[in-house]
């Protein structure tokens, strides 16, 4: 995983024409980032797998390497479309943020599991999770007001798997071919509140190719709450 982070100033642009009210993806009371907000993009955690004939997930380092690069490029292009600046963080700084990053990953799992899955009654259907003050460590290091986290796990059916799928299809058994799961989350670096969260869970998408990676980034950042 290459540890480059970038800070970009969000200039008022909209890249989704759709009008969203209080959607499932937004924390109560939050609609969009204010103009001129600074958002730090945390290093994306991506891993790609091949599904063998036996259904075993096999990590594919070269695919992951490629996907990480494609994802970064796609994100950079996105920022460029919005006319944004980027800054690099030292790897040493990223190390300092390990515990907050680990914490965020756990919270994101909880949100993906419950807010978009089996709900927790006490949350009353709202996106209401906060990492609290510890996120201010990110603010201190980067000067940003918000942080964007992303995580993708993607699996692709290997040739044997595809053959197995075809064979089993003939006897009426459906086999999963491959799944793309991921999330993107936007966190307020003053309060730690998760302001926006998008979960990806689908059977398509391909991060192994640069052009298809762009599509994944678009899907992940669909309706990213930027002020018009």
């Amino acid at each position, binding site marked *: 995983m290459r*540890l480059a982070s970038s800070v970009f100033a969000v200039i008022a642009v909209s890249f989704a024409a759709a009008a969203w009210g209080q959607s499932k993806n937004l924390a109560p009371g939050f609609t969009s980032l204010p103009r001129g907000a600074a958002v730090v993009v945390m290093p994306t955690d991506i891993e790609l797998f091949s599904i*063998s*004939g*036996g259904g075993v997930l096999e*990590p594919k*380092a*070269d695919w992951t*390497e490629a996907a990480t690069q494609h994802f970064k490029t796609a994100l950079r292009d996105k920022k460029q479309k919005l006319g944004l600046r980027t800054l690099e963080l030292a790897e040493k700084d990223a190390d300092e943020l390990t515990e907050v990053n680990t914490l965020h990953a756990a919270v994101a799992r909880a949100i993906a599991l419950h807010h978009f899955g089996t709900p927790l009654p006490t949350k009353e259907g709202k996106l209401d999770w906060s990492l609290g003050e510890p996120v201010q460590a990110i603010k201190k290091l980067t000067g940003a007001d918000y942080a964007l986290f992303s995580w993708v796990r993607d699996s692709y059916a290997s040739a044997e798997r595809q053959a197995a799928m075809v064979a089993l299809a003939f006897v009426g058994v459906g086999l999963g071919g491959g799944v793309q799961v991921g999330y993107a989350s936007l966190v307020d670096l003053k309060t730690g509140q998760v302001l926006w969260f998008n979960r990806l869970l689908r059977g398509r998408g391909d991060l192994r190719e640069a052009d298809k990676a762009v599509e994944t980034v678009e899907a992940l950042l669909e309706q990213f709450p930027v002020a018009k």
Partner: protein
Amino acid sequence: MNRRGFLAGGCACCVGGLVPGPAAAQAAWEIPARFARPDAGSDEGGLWSMMDREEVRLRKSPFSLRDPKLQAYVQDIACRLAGEHCPDVRVHLVRTPLFNASMAPNGMMQVWSGLMLRVDNEAQLAAVLGHEIGHYLARHSVERLRDAKSRSAFGMFIGMFGAVGAVGQLGLYAGMFAYSREHESQADSIGVLLMRKAGYDAAEAAKVWENLQLEIKARPDGDASRSPFFATHPPAADRQQALAELARASPAGAANEVQWREGVKPFLRDWLHEEVKRGQHEESLALLGRMIARSPALADYRWARGEVYRLRAKEGDLDSAVTEYLAAIAGGGEPPDTHRGLGMIYRARRQSPEARTSFQRYLELAPEAPDSALIKSYVEELRT
């Protein structure tokens, strides 16, 4: 190595049989030049990238033992063994109470605290590290990788080198990705070669396995494969024989026991504590028995054995525990927990004055102990 295998091994195939004799193997093999980073698209390259990412995680992991002095010490030993390959070897110490060391194809080396607890001197550590470097120099893992790819669980292969202190995974894949007999034999040869070049006494290599066997034999089921090291390095029946032969061919070198003991002293108590907490009493007793035979005066070992007896609590164990604790105290420099252990036994036996004295001594020696409030309450209770 199970007893049956070791006895049956004899000399049936160790000299001039199917496997070339170790001395012969040494003459034929030369240390290769440093490895260049493989092409990212190749399978080796893919493995390398994965290892790089695992290494980043390892560096950040809370299970990583980050003491700069100890790390530098072990790194230095690994470096001298690796010779020209020194710049490519990166040592990571990991807090896991099991015997294991591994080296990934990208140069990342893991040394678990359980291994550092068990070796008596630098030479023994060098034997294990040299063996791992042997696998690295002879590129066994890449061969294994190509072999394993045809089996669908390739991804698990990474677990051998990655996942910090991954105990569970290694247990699961026992034997699946183990190095072959030929690989083991070659790594042993290379390890001894490297030890000699670095000035270590090669005779210590056989001792490491001898010592480990003691522990394994002590296991109620005698099952070697449950050791993480033996999950991936199946003990060859003729191995000790082969190592002894190799050592005979080399002039004696240094063992550096004193330096080693000094180097690990600050960590010994913690590592012993972790070993005891494993709850594998028979193995711990075998290990401690061996250590006490070497250093009868070291209070920490007596305390640890006392703890094991106290926790096992079989017939006669509590008496044994008391004996050990008292021996620790007699030796001097005993851990404060020694008095706590004594106090617990006395309290259970309703020997109130002795219990109170012991607990009070514990509180004196360790006023900030986590359970000081509980122990104080026991002292109060025992007054009445």
